[in-house]
Each structure stands twice: as structure tokens, then as C-alpha cells.
């Protein structure tokens, strides 16, 4: 068993176009490091300076991980993780 990670369109250039990939790890940080070993470049699109990028949303089983433990959130086999860039902007 592994953890399914759903990849947004903008990051599928790192996954050969795949919408979902599998990864392993005990925390999100480990999961993203594991993803990086097979999908070079993806980690830096999600993580910056050891934290989740402000405008990238990560959900664990549909819950925004900012309301859990952020990048230290624990994950387990059978969980699913969804990555979605924020839709944001404005004149500021």
C-alpha cells in the first residue's frame, strides 16, 4: 500500500502527465521528498524553505493541512493527498 497523491495540471509536467501518483512517507515532508526521487523538480514547487508554499494548498483526505500540522502532518498507507495551487490574485 502507498499514499495516492493527486497532481494538479500545472505540475503534471513533472509526472509525465499523470493525474495521480503514489508515494511513501510518514509525514508530508517525507512524502514530497519521496516524490522528488521519481519526479524531479516537483518538491520545489510545493515546498519552500522547509514549509509549504503559501499559495499551494495541500489536502489530506480532503482536509486542508494548514489546519492539521502543515508539512509535518502525519500520513499513513491508504490516505490520499491532493495538491491544488491557490486561485488568487488582485490588484495589490
Amino acid at each position, binding site marked *: 500500500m502507498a499514499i495516492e497523491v493527486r497532481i*494538479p*495540471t*500545472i505540475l503534471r509536467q513533472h509526472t509525465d502527465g499523470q493525474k495521480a501518483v503514489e508515494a511513501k512517507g510518514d509525514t508530508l515532508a517525507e512524502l514530497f521528498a519521496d516524490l522528488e526521487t521519481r519526479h524531479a523538480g516537483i518538491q520545489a514547487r510545493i515546498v519552500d524553505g522547509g514549509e509549504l508554499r503559501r*499559495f499551494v*494548498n495541500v*489536502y489530506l483526505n*480532503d482536509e*486542508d493541512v*494548514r489546519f492539521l500540522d502543515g508539512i509535518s502532518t502525519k500520513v499513513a498507507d491508504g490516505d490520499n493527498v*491532493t495538491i*491544488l*495551487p*491557490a*486561485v*488568487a*490574485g*488582485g*490588484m*495589490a
Partner: protein
Amino acid sequence: MLTITQALHDQIVAHARQDHPDEACGVVAGPAGSGRPERFIPMLNAARSPTFYEFDSQDLLKLYREMDDRDEEPVVIYHSHTATEAYPSRTDISYANEPGAHYVLVSTADTDGAGDFQFRSFRIVEGEVTEEEVKVVEAY
């Protein structure tokens, strides 16, 4: 070029007008690969700000799930500028993550004079902005 129905165009403008002085935002989804905006989905601006917009994170997840289930994509991503022209700001450009989408900007800057609402469309790909023609039609 963005081809959009008069009805959708008017819904976007009405949403921008209604939320003024805050920025309004939303999506018009369409069948994946068609480039045809069909389903109007106004979104809540979680920032509730006159100078910033951000889709609420739970709403965002629900939106993308729903589009995925229906085999749709965000054909148009729109938002309003409330005090400046309808042109992508630096912020808009740095957070633009849908290279396949038409980014529609509506300016409500002249809303008090009830003047014409600017309605412009752009592609934003890897930080590069290209304005495109907007063709408003009665039906597709």
C-alpha cells in the same frame, strides 16, 4: 480569442458589480479540451478585500473535484479590480497557475458613474501576459 455568450458575460459583470468594493472572483467551467465556457461558478472571495482575492481552500477542493467528476476544466477564471484597470497585476501574474485558462478581468473602477465595465481577457503562461480578443455571442 475568448468566445463567450452574452449571458455569461453579463453574469460575470453582475457578480463584479454586486461584490464591489471587494474583488469578485469565479470560474466558468467547460468540457475538457473544448475551450468553451459553459457553467458559471461564482466563488467566494475568502480574502474579502478590495485589493486581493483568493478562493476559499475548501471551496477550491470541491470545485476541482466537481470539475474532475464532470470531465470539465476551468475555461475562464475571472476576477475584478475595483480601483484599477482590467489588466493583470504583478500579483495576478505570479499566482496564475492555469496556463490553459482565459483570465478574465473586469474593472469596476467606474462603478459609481455606472459607466461601461471593462471586460478583458488574457492568457498568462509562465509569467507572460498576452491579451486576446473577446467575442461575445448570443449562443455557441
